[in-house]
């Protein structure tokens, strides 16, 4: 679908505001190639109609899909609504229940610049407060690892520019969990203290990392060969406590790759629970 007069400016402004991607004039092809499928899927006959649909999206779901399409393989806060519904309704309440009897641990296995790990910290904090047991949040230790030390440097800083902070994060959460420092948003010291980052190559032995009560390995395995995926899931199973979940990206599956886990479907999110007996 072609962009007509004025439509590029509309989409440019929308994408900048919601994806943090700056589009120069001349980048019309990016909008056309990455968003046409979605626009047609919604029955839009023009980008003007698509823009109106996106603006009217109060649930945020369409915005999420536009962000997905524009930022391939990118990280942002609270990526994938279905996964975060599972986290909010199942995983985090369970982690906090266990935290009442001692520390629990979550692993964000490819944390990149920190958005996933900090999203977990935000949700844990919010849920603990809603339960009237805010102190329990401090017993949920979150570990973020990545192979890129440059990404980790940025994750550890917990600082995001005004475009990055908008990707996936509501105004309310931004105000609640970040402080403004000039044009930058910095994660609160309290949440920062609950997340640790360290460099780790997923090909290395994991013995020193675990055990964990939840492992997030989203949009990582898609880049690996099948043989390595088998090995990776096996080793992750070794550092995951029995009955606890390993979560992959929405487009990924463990089918045919491991006997160590049972799939569990919560609404539209499939997670993989480590079997209790082997």
């Amino acid at each position, binding site marked *: 679908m072609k962009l007509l007069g004025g439509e590029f400016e509309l989409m440019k402004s929308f994408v900048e505001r919601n994806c943090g991607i700056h589009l*120069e004039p001349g980048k019309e092809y990016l909008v056309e190639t990455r968003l046409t499928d979605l626009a047609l899927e919604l029955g839009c006959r023009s980008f003007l109609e698509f823009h109106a649909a996106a603006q009217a999206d109060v649930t945020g779901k369409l915005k999420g899909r536009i962000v997905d399409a524009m930022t391939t393989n990118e990280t942002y806060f609270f990526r994938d609504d279905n996964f975060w519904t599972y986290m909010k309704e199942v995983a985090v309440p369970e982690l906090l229940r266990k935290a009442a009897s001692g520390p629990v641990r979550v692993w964000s296995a490819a944390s990149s610049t920190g958005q996933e790990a900090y999203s977990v910290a935000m949700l844990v904090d919010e849920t603990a407060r809603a339960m009237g047991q805010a102190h329990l949040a401090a017993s949920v230790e979150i570990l973020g690892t990545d192979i890129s030390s440059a990404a980790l440097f940025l994750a*550890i800083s917990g600082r995001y520019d005004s475009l990055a902070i908008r990707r996936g994060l509501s105004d309310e959460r931004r105000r609640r969990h970040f402080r403004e420092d000039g044009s930058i948003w910095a994660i609160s010291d309290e949440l920062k203290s609950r997340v640790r980052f360290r460099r780790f190559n997923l090909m290395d032995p994991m013995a020193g990392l675990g055990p964990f009560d939840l492992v997030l390995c989203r949009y990582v395995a898609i880049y690996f060969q099948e043989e390595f995926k088998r090995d990776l899931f096996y080793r992750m199973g070794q550092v995951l406590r029995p009955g606890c979940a390993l979560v992959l990206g929405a487009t990924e599956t463990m089918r045919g790759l491991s006997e160590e886990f049972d799939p569990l479907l919560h609404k539209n999110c499939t997670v993989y629970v480590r079997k209790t007996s082997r």
Partner: protein
Amino acid sequence: MKILSIDDSNSIRHAVKKMLDVIGAECFEAGDGLEGLALLERTGPVDLILLDMEMPRMDGITFLETVKKDPRWKDIPVIILSSIAQRESMIKAIQEGAKQYLTKPFTSEQLLVKVVEALNLDGDIL
């Protein structure tokens, strides 16, 4: 930490400057290669140069060739910020000594990871 951003697009320079605030870098801006050279003469060495390819008056390749021949500036790492359409000139820039390249459009994380690597800010991460 001083970074020179050379791009003929005001909006790109503005966006880059904001992104660099994350790591507390001081950003100097130039609209083309000639302005970039003048700025280097005026401010002295910088720690990193972010360079667009297609610009009026002096393009990225000519700027790069000039800088790499000057003993005062030749060791400054250069990251090319360019579009896929300028792939040929991007390859030439790497051959001329540019350290890295990044395809436009890019997110702040994509740019900052390259900048952190080029400046070796992540040297202490274990």
